[in-house]
């Protein structure tokens, strides 16, 4: 048995690595995915472009402008003079936000009246919009706080206030600290998830397609007339891709640590142990898909249809917390969810088995159930 198994594995490796382009395609996509995710997938709103429309043109309004410029969050790209220019800027996506200071801004502040600053936000991307509006209102609120102090001081010194004014007014200070990812980089959040994505893609898709290919080209019959037993064929078809998946994982983690300086606070051994638990699920699913597909295109489409929802519901990009309650229960059936929680815990939080055991248990159960069901089905198909 051992000998035959080795033969199949050898054949599979040779078949996969024979073609130079295929060799590249096994190891290049993970790296490219990592680079794209690391550099491009960024929900942080670093610099937003804004337009400034000043209809007051006074020292006060210029001070507000300085507050926006000095925040380091906004680049002033345009200074529209009228409403139609504002409309054009927002229509063409030139700016994320337009701040408009109405005439009489300074006068109102000096007289202690309330005045408004109009802020128009391009809501096309709701995520950027809510971050930008948060920044903008906090800049204006700071400006208002300072103006309030000045107002208070002026009233004190002028001694002509209609009622007494007191110097000691309380102030609230917000001190916030972000744990695990103090600079709030989305890279640190996404890169660990890519490891999961890559293991999933390499093992699930390649396994399913490699088996179906034999069927499609008709070489499966040839394999079946050899003394190879189904279990050996199954192992021989899955182990090489499991190995490729693990090598890719190591590769991606190395690049992530060296290039992106993503923190890794947990144990590498635990990560690989969990990866192997997770592999049982993906290889099992790959086998299962191969039993229900006749052509590679079918295999691919089926894989994709399963993979996509599992991936989207895993919490990789969209937090599970935000989903409707019923869908949140549904995500409990998503093995990816548990693996992503494990990987994020290991990378960012440095948690260990004490915290992660429920997820590991879930992965083990999924793996054993899926793998044994698929193996049974695979054998029946061959017999």
């Amino acid at each position: 048995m051992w000998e035959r198994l080795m033969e199949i594995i050898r054949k599979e490796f040779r078949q996969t690595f024979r073609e130079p382009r295929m060799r590249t395609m096994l190891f290049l996509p993970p790296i490219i995915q990592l680079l794209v995710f690391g550099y491009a997938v960024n929900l942080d709103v670093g610099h937003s472009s804004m337009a400034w429309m000043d209809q007051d043109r006074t020292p006060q309004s210029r001070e507000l402008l300085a507050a926006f410029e000095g925040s380091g969050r906004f680049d002033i790209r345009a200074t529209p003079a009228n409403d139609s220019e504002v409309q054009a800027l927002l229509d063409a996506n030139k700016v994320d936000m337009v701040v408009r200071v109405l005439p009489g801004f300074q006068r109102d502040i000096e007289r202690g009246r309330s005045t408004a600053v109009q802020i128009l936000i391009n809501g096309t991307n709701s995520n950027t919009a809510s971050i930008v509006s948060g920044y903008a209102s906090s800049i204006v609120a700071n400006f208002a706080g300072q103006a309030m102090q000045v107002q208070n001081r002026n009233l004190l010194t002028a001694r002509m206030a209609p009622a007494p004014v007191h110097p000691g007014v309380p102030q609230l200070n917000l001190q916030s600290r972000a744990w695990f990812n103090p600079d709030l980089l989305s890279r640190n959040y996404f890169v660990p998830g890519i490891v999961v994505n890559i293991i999933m893609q390499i093992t699930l898709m390649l396994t399913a397609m490699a088996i179906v290919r034999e069927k499609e080209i008709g070489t499966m019959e040839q394999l079946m007339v050899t003394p190879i037993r189904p279990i050996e064929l199954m192992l021989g078809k899955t182990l090489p891709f499991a190995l490729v998946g693990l090598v890719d994982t190591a590769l991606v983690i190395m690049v992530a640590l060296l290039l992106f300086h993503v923190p890794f606070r947990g144990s590498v051994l635990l990560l690989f142990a969990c990866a192997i638990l997770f592999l049982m699920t993906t290889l099992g699913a790959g086998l299962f898909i191969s039993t229900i597909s006749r052509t590679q295109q079918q295999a691919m489409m089926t894989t994709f249809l399963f993979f996509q929802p599992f991936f989207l519901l895993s919490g990789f990009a969209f937090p599970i917390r935000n989903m409707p309650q019923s869908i949140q229960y549904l995500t409990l059936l998503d093995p990816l969810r548990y693996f992503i929680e494990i990987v994020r815990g290991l990378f960012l939080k440095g948690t260990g088995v004490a915290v992660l055991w429920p997820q590991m248990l879930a992965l083990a159960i999924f793996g054993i159930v899926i793998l044994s069901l698929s193996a049974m089905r695979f054998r029946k198909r061959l017999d």
Partner: protein
Amino acid sequence: MSWRRLKTVAKKELLHIVRDVRSLTLALALPMVMLLLFGYALTLDVDRIPTYIYDQDRTPQSRELIDQFRGSTYFQILGAVNGYRPAELAMDKSAILLDIVVPRDYARRLLAGQEADVQLLIDGSDSNTASIALGYAQAVIQTYAAQLRSDAQVRKGGQPLRVPVDPRIRVWYNSDLKSKNFIVPGLIAVTMMIIASMLSSLTIAREWENGTMEQLLSTPVRPRELVLGKLLAYFALGITDMLICVIVGVFIFQVPLRGSVWFLFFTSCLFLFGALSWGIFISATARTQLLAFQMGMLSSFLPGYLLSGFIYSIQNMPKVIQAVSALVPARYFVIILNGIFLKGVGLRVLWGEVSMLVVYAGLVFVAASRKMRQKVA
């Protein structure tokens, strides 16, 4: 170029598509599944942030501060803790995102008219949620602080202070800031990318792999007719998918369609033509389906998903990646779709993006037929 041969190739390819019921069902179901997921389940909008309170002060003042958070729908207070340790544990398990700590001398300092601190500890792993949550918390504190100061003045018999400037924020185009409104139009682009990269990229590689290419070559069909014929068949599939997306988006998810339907149709055809040509180009290059699939994922699905500005905004990317994204046709299509759906603008604003699509489609189609001719020769 003969119409008869072209039609025959298209018909043969359509037969392939229709006969493979499962692939066809999947090709039509995939956009629906994606739309339903994105429309119902997936959102980046942040609310009900699970929060713990650690009130060291336990005074009426500190309770009033906490009530400010309790009153906001953005925060969901899950409980009060005594000490940092329980909050740390809960954060490790991702049970909470935020821990609000009120220091021991909070009320004393407030009553003395000094600066009082409020500490926020937040789980930063999901940086996006964290920064939005911090923004909300900041807004709650700032509003409350202004009120406190004014109250303090009044209590001491002074005149109330007025907040001199107050921001009036108005959001255009997507005024309730629903992420589905910008995701659904972008999803149309992504779905088409998938159809193009997954279906058309396999079509010629399959003929090579199964050996039927030789049979095709022995017929009088020319490379360009073969490319165009296969393209037409998948074009029909792609346009059906697009119609499904638009109908589901507009009627089920109530995404506003403010622009011209014809302009939408025209630009979609243009985009689809380019994307399919690219799939066929890959297919002509790769001789096995596995390789074609990998190349398709890498060159059209991934960039279509990540570099198109569909979810992740392009202007935040580093300059190099921005330059790369200029080569991704989906990027222009996403801008066009957002323009048509949310802003109701037409060719007058979008001519730049439309001409990029025209250039792309033309170049890739020529490249695909040339590659095909090379391979055949």
